[in-house]
């Protein structure tokens, strides 16, 4: 069963789902259940492919100038697809009672978002990777735009234009690679695999390589977000609906780091080597800035948004230090961040639906009123603070340990990054204390209801995953290790000794 047309099913299923959902007429409830069923179906389809290591699908359609609908699945892409289908399922399940206006459009957009993300992950052709990389913005634009908070117009505009601007530069870099290959071999193709094999034997001159690498990094850095390009994230998160924030934090941010690991570094190892120092500096600044600024926030969603900046600073540090363990840790940390931040946003959404305010001081003493909610919140905080035994620790430990050994950039960055571990605790515990401990600041807080079975269905898998990946990460890391080993085998000759 696991052959190339499984890939086709993986690629086409969400697109079909979007069509089906948008076709469903009738009152809101029908659409919600159809869409959740389809999301669940897709999650199961993805689960079937658990044992896959590498699959390739050659398109037969003729396209001008060597562009091909090649699909390529490896463990890097696979686990992100698994994460995205899982989080979309949770997000849709969460927004059952929450969304009232235009429900069909809401669900259709989420499926469309998933479709574009999966398509982007599966694309083997650089140009179509770019096409779906940009296409991801459209559903997100409408999700934040239509169902967002008060300042959503400004936030959506900023989010869309910022990412669009960055990726336009990548477009030129992409074309430069595509043309360089054509000029060198006379063959029109943008398939990533052939480019990789070619550049492995005869790499581009470093000067050309570095400016193309910079265009790639600029576009991915805006998406990650890396330090100077992160100002869109807090606005986008604050204004996005809860389900939108879950997907935005859970999946879209990971596309940036996935892009770095899959395209930017393997294609241009020497350039990555040359720019490792400054990029590590930016990641470290991102870690520290993210933590410190999160500590000052009064809006919970902004706090979590800045925490994502800090967490992904670790991931980018792991990537730019270019060690095998570091990369395994970075990849795992991407999945962990998806789980813990996704859960945190769901929890904030749970609070927001009852009290309709995101101001941290409007709550207080929740531990007594909502004990179960506090338990889940504490577990998720521990995962995001990287307490050993939770998945956060495994990721962060591997990143820092691996990066310490690397000789591409100085080990001082790792030391500064581990300072981030301390700052992480400060703002997270600050949030817990303001939300859960002390006396309830307003009488309405007393009347809040604790988690029902519906919420438990949402949170128990996440909590289970946090501890399962914390104790037994080999289940995830096995295939990822092989893929990283493969990549490092190709770029090893270019790395500094």
């Amino acid at each position, binding site marked *: 069963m696991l052959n190339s047309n499984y890939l086709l099913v993986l690629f086409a299923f969400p697109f079909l789902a979007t069509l089906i959902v948008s076709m469903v007429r009738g009152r809101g409830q029908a659409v919600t259940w159809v869409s959740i069923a389809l999301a669940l179906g897709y999650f199961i389809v993805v689960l079937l492919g658990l044992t896959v290591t590498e699959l390739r699908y050659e398109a037969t*359609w*003729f*396209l*001008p*100038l060597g*562009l091909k609908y090649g699909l390529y699945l490896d463990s890097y892409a696979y686990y992100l697809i698994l994460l995205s289908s899982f989080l979309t399922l949770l997000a849709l399940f969460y927004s059952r009672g929450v969304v009232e206006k235009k429900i069909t459009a809401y669900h259709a957009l989420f499926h469309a978002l998933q479709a*574009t993300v999966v398509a982007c992950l599966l694309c083997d052709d650089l*140009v179509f990777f*770019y*096409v*779906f*990389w*940009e*296409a991801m*913005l*459209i559903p997100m*634009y*409408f999700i934040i*735009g*239509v169902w967002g908070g008060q300042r*959503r*117009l400004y936030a*959506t*505009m900023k989010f*869309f*234009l910022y990412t*669009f*601007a960055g990726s*336009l*530069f990548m*477009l*030129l870099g992409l*074309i*430069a690679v*595509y*043309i360089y290959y*054509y*000029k060198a071999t006379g063959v029109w193709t943008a398939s990533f695999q052939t480019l990789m094999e070619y550049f492995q034997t005869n790499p581009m001159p470093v000067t050309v390589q570095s400016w193309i690498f910079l265009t790639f990094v600029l576009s991915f850095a805006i998406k990650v977000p890396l330090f100077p390009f992160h100002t869109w994230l807090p606005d986008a998160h604050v204004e996005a609906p809860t389900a939108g924030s879950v997907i935005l934090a859970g999946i879209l941010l990971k596309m940036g780091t996935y892009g770095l690991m899959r395209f930017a570094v393997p294609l241009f190892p020497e350039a990555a080597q040359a720019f490792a120092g400054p990029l590590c500096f930016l990641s470290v600044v991102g870690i520290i800035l993210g933590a410190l600024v999160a500590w000052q926030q009064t809006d919970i969603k902004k706090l979590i948004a800045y925490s994502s900046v800090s967490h992904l600073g670790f991931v980018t540090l792991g990537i730019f230090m270019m060690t095998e363990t570091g990369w395994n840790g970075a990849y795992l940390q991407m999945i962990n961040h998806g789980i813990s931040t996704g859960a945190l946003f769901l929890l904030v959404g749970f609070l927001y639906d009852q009290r309709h305010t995101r101001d941290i001081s409007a709550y207080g003493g929740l531990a007594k009123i909502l004990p179960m909610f506090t338990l889940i919140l504490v577990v998720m905080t521990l995962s995001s603070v990287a307490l050993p035994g939770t998945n956060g620790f495994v990721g962060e430990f591997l990143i820092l340990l691996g990066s310490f050994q690397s000789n591409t950039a100085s080990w001082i960055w790792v030391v500064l990054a581990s300072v981030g571990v301390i700052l992480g605790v400060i703002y997270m515990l600050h949030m817990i204390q303001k939300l859960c401990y002390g006396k309830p600041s307003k009488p309405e807080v007393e009347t809040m209801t604790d988690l029902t079975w519906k919420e438990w269905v949402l949170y128990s898998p996440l909590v289970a995953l946090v501890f399962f990946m914390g104790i037994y990460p080999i289940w995830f890391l096995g295939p990822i290790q092989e893929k990283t080993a493969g990549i490092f085998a190709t770029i090893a000759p270019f790395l500094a000794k």
Partner: protein
Amino acid sequence: MFEKLIQDSMTALPMLHWPILACLVLVVNLFGRGGPQFYLGFVALGLIASLSWDIAIFNNELRETVFSGGVVWDSYAQVFTIIAKAMVLVVTLTVFPVAGLQTKFFKSAFDQTAEFLVCLLLSGMGVSILASAADLTSLFLGLEIMSIGLYCLCGFYRADVRSTESGFKYLMIGAFSTAIFLYGVAFIYGATGETSYALIAQKMTTLAGDPLVKLGVLFTLAGLAFKLAFVPFHLNTADVYEGAPTPVTGYLATIVKVGVLAASLRLLWGVLESVSGMWISSWIALCALSIVIGNVVALQQRTMKKLLAFSSISHAGFMGLGLLVSNPQSGDVFPLMSYIIVYSAMSLGLFALLTYLENGEKPLLIEDLRGLVRKKVWVSLALGIFIFGLAGIPPFAGFMIKFWIFQALIEQGYWTAAWIGVLGSLLGAAYYLKVLMTIFISEEEGSLISYAPPRDPILSLRLVVIAATLLTLLGGVRPQLYAHWIFSTLALK
């Protein structure tokens, strides 16, 4: 001599369909029985017949100079004639529902539908003439036929001051630029003493530094630049597009660019290739300027048609770059052709929708479109697709065509043009997003929500819109829809 003329007109028959159809309309009009929609139907059928005829007898290898040097009838000319006929057909279909309206404003205008159609057809003929021109005379006359046809079309709503003023302005500035263009032709003729492209091309190889040639090239460039609405020459475009009737604006935005690009491709790369040093740098400057300034000025526009006018200026800049890269030696004509086809489809589709949506008397402000998605879902979906397409945002064909251009630019090493193109399309995305926001996201109620659009009896306008949306959507994901057709048909030179 006479049978030679008959034989020539047999080969170049597709081009002669235009005048035949125009005269038929005039003759039928003499008997004066049918209402406006009768004539429109008549012309539409005629066009469909001539289109199918052209496609049937399409012959790729054909390459004949007919009418003793005036016309060269090759696949290039046939393709452009087909495109021109398709566009005119689309405009007639778009005008169909509006013609049926009984309001005083439209009734008084559409009494003259027959004349309107004649002008439309003959301006279409201008494109065929330009595409097949092999002589400076036919170039100049083709340009003039198209322009005069458009002057009349712009002034079609006689009772409306805006339309008359737009026609008047277009004529005055058009004539002014035609004079400049003529000076260019004069100098090229003066320098070489010939008027036919082939002979001029031979002479040009020897006249590299000749001042007359330089002046000729410059004047012609200025004339063409005005027609393509490149930036320093673009100022009247906004007023003309705003004033003219909406279907005519759509026609203006596409047909002029197609015709002039066809002509300038032959003129610049065909004839003036040996002196290309003179015009390449100023051509790049013009294109780059129009991409950036076109998009910048569009940021603050309030009426929909002016916004689209400036966006068409920036698209013209891109098409200029497309022309730049279709140098027969180092590149091919695919980027330019794909851009023309997809851009025209999107603009005509969008303007068809605007004709359907707007109520003729008042100018169509962007505020009027606020919250359109709540009432007219399908219309706003189509609008959204067109706007995303024009903005060049990936999954749609609008991006693919820009991609081909960027790819060709980088392949031939025009790096500055590529970077400016990127900056331009970024600025472009900004104002398109603003329009999308008013349609999909804003809470308030625009005036257009309540306005009942004209009845569309034979689904003519909706057909156009559906066809255009399909091309924009599928063109992006499976570009070989239009790519295959272009590669197989076009063998320039």
